[in-house]
């Protein structure tokens, strides 16, 4: 009754902070304004919209699109870590597990950077230290001699170990996708394990994550299909634990002849209506991915209204924040490379 039993989280405090932060996110019309601006104007605009500290700190070091990219990532990492530090008990555990996606992201960035021969500074630019591993940990990983050392040290930091068969496959094939695929599976497995479905909000959160797995799997299947890969080769990349896309449906989808031929199998999914207009062989994969992202954001918003004192409003905010950062980066990168403003607008997820 008094919320002192066990490790119950400080939901009211954390959710109120997150809701206040969410009120400060950029509105839809801000993106239209930014599309009409030059890069220095965008830097000034975002510095007046919550990114001031990062823009001021990084102005001497970077400029143009690099400044915007660094400022947005640094800001996002700071905010997410701030939420993690403000939360307690089971709420903290769930947020930490969700932020584990950034640990996986950072490891992928480090390994990819090393494979392209980037310097530590070059790799550092794309890191988002929002997870359990802060910049000091990530610098240690970057300082390792070989990729194997990186993976071993990452395993130690995460109090786990990368399975020997994954390591030997990576060594034999030299293909980073083996490790990336393992990291995705490991992250979702850990995240699902962190949720104790003893109450309705937590069951809802579990459903939400399982839905996210479905979306990720569908994106993977579609991407591989566009590359002409199908059948068993696709199935090895499917993350277990999805809510609607089980192994049987994944096999059917993987064996479908084209994207439009997948429509029949996809019709049984809850979110079919949301992606139906984008499911056309003439449409690019980007349209389907954008439709899936929009659906995911919509789900987060709906769930967060259902249970205000749960982890869902926090996750909802983190998804919205990540989307805002992605949109700003798309606009900055698009303008920098001279893309047409209408094309950039089409790439935004609003």
């Amino acid at each position, binding site marked *: *009754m*008094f*919320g002192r039993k066990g490790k119950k989280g*400080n*939901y*009211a*405090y*954390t*959710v*109120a*902070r997150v*809701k*206040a*932060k969410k*009120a*400060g996110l950029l509105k839809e019309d801000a993106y239209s304004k930014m599309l009409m601006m030059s890069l220095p104007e965008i830097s000034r605009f975002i510095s007046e919209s919550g990114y001031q500290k990062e823009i001021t700190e990084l102005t001497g070091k970077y400029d143009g699109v690099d400044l915007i990219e660094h400022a947005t990532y640094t800001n996002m990492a700071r905010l997410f870590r701030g939420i993690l530090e*403000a939360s307690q008990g089971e709420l903290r555990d769930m947020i930490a597990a969700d932020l584990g996606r950034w640990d996986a992201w950072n490891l992928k960035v480090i390994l990819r950077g090393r494979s392209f021969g980037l310097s530590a500074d070059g790799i550092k630019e794309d890191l988002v230290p929002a997870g359990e591993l802060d910049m000091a940990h990530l610098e240690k990983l970057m300082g390792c001699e070989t990729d194997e050392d990186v993976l071993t040290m990452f395993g130690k930091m995460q109090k786990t170990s990368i399975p020997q068969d994954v390591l030997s496959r990576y060594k034999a094939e030299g293909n980073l996708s083996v490790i990336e695929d393992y990291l995705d599976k490991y992250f979702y497995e850990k995240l699902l394990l962190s949720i104790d479905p003893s109450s309705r909000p937590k069951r809802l959160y579990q459903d939400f994550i399982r839905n996210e797995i479905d979306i990720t799997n569908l994106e993977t299947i579609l991407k591989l299909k566009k590359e002409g890969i199908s059948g068993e080769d696709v199935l090895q990349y499917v993350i277990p634990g999805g809510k609607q896309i089980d192994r049987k449906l994944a096999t059917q989808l993987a064996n479908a002849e084209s994207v439009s031929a997948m429509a029949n199998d996809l019709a049984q999914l809850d979110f079919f209506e949301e992606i139906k207009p984008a499911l056309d062989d003439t449409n690019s994969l980007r349209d389907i991915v954008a439709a899936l992202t929009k659906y995911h954001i919509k789900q987060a918003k709906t769930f967060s209204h259902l249970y205000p*004192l749960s982890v869902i409003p926090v996750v909802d905010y983190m998804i919205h924040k990540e989307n805002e950062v992605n949109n700003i980066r798309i606009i900055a990168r698009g303008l920098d490379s001279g893309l047409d403003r209408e094309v950039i607008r089409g790439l935004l997820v609003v």
Partner: protein
Amino acid sequence: MDIGLIAIGAGLAVGLTGLGAGLAEKDVGAAAVGAITEDVSLFGKAMVLMVLPETIVIFGLVVAILAAFVLPGMI
């Protein structure tokens, strides 16, 4: 004996409503502090919401006063 029961009733009216208000304020207070941490301009609104549950104690106090001063005259 009757006076004693009336006094216990009056005490319960204030005590239980105080407990109820405390429970309600637990989450309201935590949320108010969280909101003010992010945006100090929310202090006024948070303060109003914070004291709202205390109205329950006022009802309890009114009941206790009635019990303590009006009921003995009716016996």
